[in-house]
C-alpha cells in the first residue's frame, strides 16, 4: 500500500522559516560554568578525588579518541540504539495501527498494553539477561521492548484522532476501507507517530547504556562501569559528556529528517490557524 504523501510542503511556512542561529550566549554560559568549575578546583576552593578538573576531562576525551577506544565503544552503543529503535518503530506502528483500527484487537489487547507499558522497562533487564545471556541480541531486545511503547501508544492515539466527520466524508466520497486508511488515517496519525518516535529515540539510547552496564559488557555503558571501578573519574565524565552530545545529535538528526521528509509533522497544533 503506497502511503499518501503525508503533509505536503507549505511554501508559505517555509518562506517564513527562519534559520535558527547558533545560540552563542547559551554556549558561552556553558563555557563559563566550566571555567568557574575549573577555577574553583585550581584555587583549591573545591576539592574531591572523584571530581576531575574540566581540562582533565577534555584531555581524557582526546586520549580515548586517540586510542580508538571511544570510537569503537560509541559505535557499538549507537548501533544498538538505532537498530533497536528502528525495530521498535516498525513493531510499534504495526501494532498501534492494528489496535487503533480494529475494535476487536483493541478489546483484547488494551489491558495487556496498559499493563506492559506501565511496567518500568528497566525491571525487564535482568530477565532479558537471564533469557538471552550477554549478547547483542539481549541488548536489542531490551532497547526495542522499552522503545515500542511510546510509538505504539501514540499511534493508537493518532488513529483515534480521525473524526466522525472524516468518516462521513469518506463514505460520501465512496472510499473503500483501504483508501480511507491511506487518505485519512495515515496522514492524521503521522504526526503522533513522529512524536512517539522522538520520545523512543532518547529512551533507546538510555536503555542501550543500561543493557551494557548490567548485561552485555560492551559499548559506552560498560566503559562507564570500568572507569568507575578503576577510579578514573575523568574517563567517566568524558564518556558522559560524549554520550550527552550523541543524544543531542540523534535528536537533532531526527528532527531534521522529519522536517525534510514530512514538513509540518512535528508541529501537531500547527495545521490550522
Amino acid at each position, binding site marked *: 500500500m503506497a502511503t499518501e504523501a503525508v503533509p*505536503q510542503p507549505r511554501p508559505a511556512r517555509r518562506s517564513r522559516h527562519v534559520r535558527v542561529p547558533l545560540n552563542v550566549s547559551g554556549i558561552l554560559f556553558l563555557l563559563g560554568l566550566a571555567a568557574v568549575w575549573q577555577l574553583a578546583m585550581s584555587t583549591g576552593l573545591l576539592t574531591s578525588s572523584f571530581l576531575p578538573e574540566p581540562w582533565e576531562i577534555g584531555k581524557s576525551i582526546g586520549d580515548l579518541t586517540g586510542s580508538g577506544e571511544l570510537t569503537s565503544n560509541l559505535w557499538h552503543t549507537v548501533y544498538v540504539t538505532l537498530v533497536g529503535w528502528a525495530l521498535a518503530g516498525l513493531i510499534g506502528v504495526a501494532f498501534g495501527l492494528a489496535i487503533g483500527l480494529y475494535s476487536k484487537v483493541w478489546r483484547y489487547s488494551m489491558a495487556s498494553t496498559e499493563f506492559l507499558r506501565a511496567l518500568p522497562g528497566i525491571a525487564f533487564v535482568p530477565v532479558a539477561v537471564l533469557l538471552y545471556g550477554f549478547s547483542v541480541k539481549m541488548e536489542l531486545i531490551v532497547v526495542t521492548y522499552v522503545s515500542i511503547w511510546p510509538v505504539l501508544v501514540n499511534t493508537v492515539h493518532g488513529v483515534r484522532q480521525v473524526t466522525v*466527520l472524516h468518516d462521513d*466524508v469518506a*463514505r460520501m*466520497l465512496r*472510499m473503500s476501507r483501504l483508501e480511507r486508511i491511506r*487518505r485519512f488515517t495515515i*496522514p492524521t496519525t503521522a504526526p503522533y507517530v513522529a512524536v512517539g518516535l522522538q520520545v523512543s529515540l532518547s529512551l533507546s539510547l538510555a536503555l542501550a547504556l543500561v543493557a551494557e552496564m548490567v548485561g552485555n559488557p560492551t559499548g559506552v555503558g560498560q566503559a562507564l562501569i570500568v572507569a568507575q571501578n578503576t577510579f578514573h573519574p575523568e574517563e567517566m565524565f568524558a564518556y558522559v559528556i560524549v554520550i550527552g552530545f550523541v543524544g543531542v545529535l540523534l535528536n537533532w538528526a531526527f528532527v531534521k529528517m522529519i522536517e525534510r521528509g514530512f514538513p509540518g509533522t512535528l508541529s501537531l497544533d500547527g*495545521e*490550522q490557524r
Partner: protein
Amino acid sequence: MEEKVTVAAPGAKAADSAIFACLGLGIEFDTPNGPHRVLDAVDLSVAPGEFVSIVGQSGTGKSTLLRILGGLERPAAGSSVRHRGQEVTEPPEGVLMVFQDYRGSLLPWRTVEKNVMLGIEKSTSGAERKERCQEALELVGLADRANDHPWRLSGGMQQRVQIARSLAMRPEVLLMDEPFGALDAMTKEQLQDELLSVHAATGATIVFVTHDIEEAIYLSDRVLVLAGAPARVTEELTIELPRPRDQMRTKELPDYLRLRQTAYTALRGSGAGGH
C-alpha cells in the same frame, strides 16, 4: 396548521422518476431514558433538478433527515426511503453531501486542489482529474487558489472548496446541511448567489437544510417546514419567484414577503418561541 399537507412535487409524475421519495419515514435514537423518536411519518418527494429546502428549528431533526437521504443513517423499521425507486441503504449513486463544518471536512494537509481531487482520485487519470478540479474550482470562483492550503482561506472560501469537491464528482444530487450557517451575512449572500448559478449551470437536484427562512425561500423551488416532536412536515410552500433571483429585487417582491410571512407563521405556530 397541524395537519399534514401533501402536495405533489412539481414534475413528479411517477414515484420512480422522483429523485427521493419518502413515505412514513421515522427514526429514533436510544437515550438513557429509552428510545427517543426524532422524526415520525415524514412524507416527501424531490423531483429531478428541483431545489428543495427543509427548514425547522434547531433540534427538529432536519440534519438527521438529510443524513437518511444520504444513506448515512438508517431510518426506523417501516420507513420507506427511495432514491430513484431504489431503497436507500448506503450513499446512493450520484448523491453527495456538503457538511456544515467545512473546516472539519477538508484535509488540512492537502492543498485546495488536492482536497477537490479527493473523491475522483480513484476513478480518473491525471489530466482528466486536473481538468475536472479546475472546472469545479472555476464554478465556485476559486481557480486561482488551487495551490493554497485550506487554512490560508477564509471560512467562505473553505466552504466553496467543499462544494467544489462535490462538484468535481459531477453529482446528480447535492445534500447540503446548513452549509452557510457559520458564515457572516455578506459572505452568506454571496455564496447563496453562487450556489444558484451552480444549480443553473449543472442542473443538479439540491436538498438544502437551513434554519434561515429567508435563505430557504430565496434559493428554493419548494420549502418544507419540519416541526413538532417527533417532527413531521407541517407546511409545504411552492416558491414561484422568477429566476434568476436577485438579493435586492427578489426580496422586495410581494410574493416573497407573503411567503416569508407564511413560513414564519408555520414555524411559530409549531412550537416553542419563533425565529
